[in-house]
């Protein structure tokens, strides 16, 4: 990120030595235009969701942008949370377990895999690289996956869904780890081996701590992806006992056809976790996404 910053600085200076008044006015116009654009295209939809989550059922039926005459946010939250015997709380619990366990597994397993795949270049390397590329591009085969999970007794179970998330996010994460491993000098490994470190201690005591920046990226990106995942829970974890936040929202869509305020409250509640991640890790998310895509 820091190298990008500095080149940006240079590029900015090279563009314009002096700024005459006309050009400055033009730039001011461009800034105002940009802000106007974001208000119309982005803030109005956000505002629309928030303002309708504040309303009573009757007022939200208009689907308008008008401010509510009375505020019902707390009441709406309580109704949504208590609906169907606290389904939303179960959903939040399930989604949290799914996200946390999958992300931890991805960090450890992909870290180990990336470590070996970057350091060891041999006959297997081209095949392994191809298999990873395949995983990035090919859509997963749904029903055969159900068949495999069913055969292992893991269909409709949380461990089964966790395995699916790990398998499907593995190619992207391992690419990030491989890319970062390339920047860790081999001399570190050699010194450790000479000091009598085995591969296991080398990885867990020395390499894994050094991978911390890319691990942070993997954690944030995968947490958002898995928390927002809809299709995989829909297929591999059906049933009302096993809901996740996304499938709950989808179910509420048909339940609340006449109570849009509650639907918007639900949307608001499940957007809070990604919003918090965004506020704290914005830079890291952007850096990880661009690094992953440019290399991949």
């Amino acid at each position, binding site marked *: 990120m820091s190298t*990008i910053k500095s080149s*940006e600085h240079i*590029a900015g200076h*090279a*563009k314009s030595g002096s700024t005459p008044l006309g050009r400055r006015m033009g730039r001011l116009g461009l*800034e105002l235009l940009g802000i106007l654009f*974001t208000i119309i*295209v*982005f*803030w109005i939809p956000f505002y629309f*969701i928030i303002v309708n989550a504040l309303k009573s059922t009757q007022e939200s039926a*208009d*689907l*308008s942008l008008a401010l509510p005459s009375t505020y019902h946010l707390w009441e709406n939250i309580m109704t949504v949370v208590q609906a169907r015997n606290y389904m939303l709380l179960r959903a939040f619990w399930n989604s949290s377990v799914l996200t946390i366990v999958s992300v931890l597994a991805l960090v450890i*397993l*992909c870290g180990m*895999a990336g470590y*070996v*795949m970057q*350091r*060891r270049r041999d006959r297997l390397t081209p095949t392994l690289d191809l298999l990873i590329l*395949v995983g990035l*591009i*090919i*859509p*997963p*085969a*749904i*029903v*055969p*996956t159900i*068949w*495999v999970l069913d055969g292992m007794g893991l269909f409709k179970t949380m461990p089964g869904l966790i395995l699916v998330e*790990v*398998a499907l996010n*593995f190619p992207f994460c*391992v690419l990030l780890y491989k890319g970062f491993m390339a920047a860790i000098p081999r001399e570190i*490994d050699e010194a450790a*081996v000479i000091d009598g470190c*085995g*591969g296991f201690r080398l990885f867990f005591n020395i390499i894994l701590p050094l991978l911390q920046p890319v691990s942070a990226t993997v954690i944030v990106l995968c947490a*958002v992806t898995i*928390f927002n995942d*809809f*299709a995989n829970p829909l297929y591999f974890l059906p049933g009302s006992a096993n809901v996740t936040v*996304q499938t709950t*929202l*989808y179910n509420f*869509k048909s339940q609340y056809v006449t109570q849009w305020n509650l639907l*918007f409250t639900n*949307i608001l509640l499940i957007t809070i976790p*990604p*919003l918090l991640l*965004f506020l704290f890790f*914005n830079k890291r998310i*952007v850096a990880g*996404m*661009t690094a992953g*895509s*440019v290399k991949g």
Partner: protein
Amino acid sequence: MNRVFRRTYSYWFLMPAAVIYFVIFLLPTVMSFFFSFTRWTLADWEFIGLDNFVMFFQEQSLRIGFQNTLIYAVVTCGLKVILGLLLGVLLTSRLRTRNYLRSVIFFPTLISTIAVGIAFSMMMHPTQGIINTALGWAGLPGLDWLGDTRVALLSIALVDVWKGVGFATVIYIAGILSIPPDYYEALQIDGGGAWHKFWNIIVPLSRPATNSVIILSFIGGLRSFDLVWAMTQGGPGFTTDVIASIIYKQYQGGFYGLATAGNVILFVIVTVLAFPLYRYLNKREVDL
């Protein structure tokens, strides 16, 4: 040293991830080729040859999925490239509001697709939706965005672009910032204007970014399911069904063989289109 090397970088480290990846992803992918030729109920299968594929090409409600998937992928991909490039240029210029603009444009990438789909289907409501209300103020006729069979798929594609353009933009920002400043200096000495800068420097030299955006959004477009499902469930009728939503419908109906045939078709389309595209784009990059 070779023995030490092999022990230090033992393939045992790769094993846990490789086993999961193999069993949960690669094995089902390979098996899908077999099961697509069967009538299948998880417990039991019967070989029926090419019947599933024939059905896919003959049945109008299934065939429409191909057309829609391609239209959807091309439209979303094209708009993301154009808008991403323009926004990328804007957001690397010396605007004081640059960071604010970047954050706002990027944020929708992180919201749940289902939430975005539901919110937009409310805004696209034919009589009460705010989009038609706003058009009414401007004296323009409104559209039945999701109910009119001619525009429904494009409406969903537009929402997809709304959600995904931030990602395309950050890739372009990274690409534009990696252009060496010498080029701008040379242009200044030669007396080129803003248009020259855009067309003769930024567009050709941000080529790697363009390739990434094309590949990622094209593949994403071919595979898209969540947004279509949240907004129309393939309706009205079958007019917005894409292959992924057809797979889900056949799965729900218990036609596992047919659903798997859909998966194989999607596999083939992605492979036939994406791999050559990938290679072609990478070659262009080298020629440059």
